[in-house]
């Protein structure tokens, strides 16, 4: 099972463009990232620039509308994420607990949707079901 651990740093919603993380924090996080890597469960990770450097697209009335950051109404924004491969939600939570998070940080743990999680009709829609049986090839995979 794949899980995303989403870092939500309080105050990041107001961070100015080009905000840099503190060196000691970075060091602590690097050690944590290494631990995930050494455990063989880390699939991907990224940090995100603050919303002041970003944009939001909304779709009221079916028409896309762009708003540049920062976003006054946003109470929580994403600072970054890890994607991990573990056997259960409990395991993902245990890993999230090991993160050296600070006073104003929250990690949200969310399971990644896999095709098998969808109902059969959704799966068909997602796959654009086509007949695969008339295969001209004959190669070992």
């Amino acid at each position, binding site marked *: 099972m794949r899980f995303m651990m989403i870092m939500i740093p309080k105050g990041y919603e107001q961070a100015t463009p080009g905000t840099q993380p503190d060196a000691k924090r970075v060091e602590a996080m690097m050690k944590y990232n290494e631990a995930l890597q050494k*455990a*063989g*469960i880390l*699939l991907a990770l990224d940090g995100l620039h603050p919303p002041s450097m970003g944009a939001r697209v909304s779709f009221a009335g079916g028409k896309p509308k762009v708003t540049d950051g920062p976003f006054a109404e946003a109470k929580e924004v994403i600072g970054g994420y890890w994607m991990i491969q573990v056997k259960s939600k409990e395991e993902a939570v245990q890993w999230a607990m090991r993160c050296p998070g600070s006073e104003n940080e929250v990690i949200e743990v969310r399971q990644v949707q896999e095709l098998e999680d969808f109902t059969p009709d959704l799966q068909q829609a997602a796959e654009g079901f086509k007949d695969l*049986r008339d295969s001209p*090839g004959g*190669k*070992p*995979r």
Partner: protein
Amino acid sequence: MTASNPHRAIEAVWRIESARLIAALARLVRDVGRAEELAQDALVAALEQWPQAGIPDNPGAWLMATAKHRAIDQLRHRTLAARKHQQLGYEIDLLETPDDLDLDTVDDDIGDDLLRLMFTACHPVLSEEAQVALTLRLIGGLSTEEIARAFLVPETTMAQRIVRAKRALSEARVPFEIPGAAQLSERLAAVLQVIYLVFNEGYSATAGQDWARPSLCEDALRLGRILAELAPHEAEVHGLVALMEIQASRLRARVDPSGAPVLLLDQDRAKWDQLLIHRGLAALERAARSNGARPPSFAQFAIAPGPYVLQAEIAACHARALTADATDWQRIAALYAALMVLAPSPIVAVNSAVAIGMAEGPAAGLEMIDTVSHEPALRNYHLLPTVRGDLLEKLGRYDEAFAEFTRAAALTGNARERRFLQERAARVAGQFPGKGHA
């Protein structure tokens, strides 16, 4: 901890901590079997105490301290019962190691211990199936029941296999160490073989109704990735990881919605997991860098790539092709030629024939495959007649193709694959598959 899931939370902690715990204990007590028992005792204590007291801040250290105290207790009993001088060595180790041993601060030691554990679990004194069972149990952290289910044997059989394996290591007095330079290559190859065996068990079930058991692929990938961090200078380790990442990227595309197999060249590439492909290609880069070799231009490897790197390069060729038609068959054929030099086997020759068939035409492919058609080792290998049948079909030799597909269907142990091959035979005989017709 939520009252509803104390055991599941503890199970999760166990999966995270058990391998390093057993490894550290094994260095102390010099016996992998005993180390595992001590670790299990600590788990029992955790299951008794943590639901009420909560999971400690440093669960690894708690488990280690608990296991060590138990070891010391046992030691006191034994010392009183009989004084044996040769035990004094590890006994002193045990008594002198600080109680608050923090598994994280002595990371390098733990890394070495984990490596020692992997080598010990794959020791040549054990049969391959014992090596697999022990690796999954001690490093993979799987329960006996999980391993038994994965390999389709009764739990009691698997339990016996593990008990006997531990006993064999004890009786042979297998030292808890990283092999010396002279044996390292061979011993590492054994570890890689075990990991790849687990992966293949998940990737393509050899018998039974189901095509794949993806969970074993995950376990193998995790073991491979762990090893890559423990032995980062070994190109073949990165090669194996690359191979597994790329093969795993195709898991979703390998079966169609009805569960029937889909050949690689017919797979919907939109279903190939790009994250895993990216990771696989990155692992190949690491392989190229790790032995001082230059990035892949494969006429000029500074140090010849090993078999896993070569197989990964072949998988990467497919992964990089946006469509089947875009496949670089020339390169694949050349990689197989290199593999034939390094690790010649009739099976590699069959795969080589496929590549040559695509690069130079079916007649050339048939010529290659006929160099091994009569190999006794391939008598029951269903992919040989499958490939031969395909090449013959392309050459318009339909009667012979029919005979080969029929033969292949009879040889495969996988029910879905059998149906698939029977349908190919029927198609070649000019009949249409019966599915969907009254």
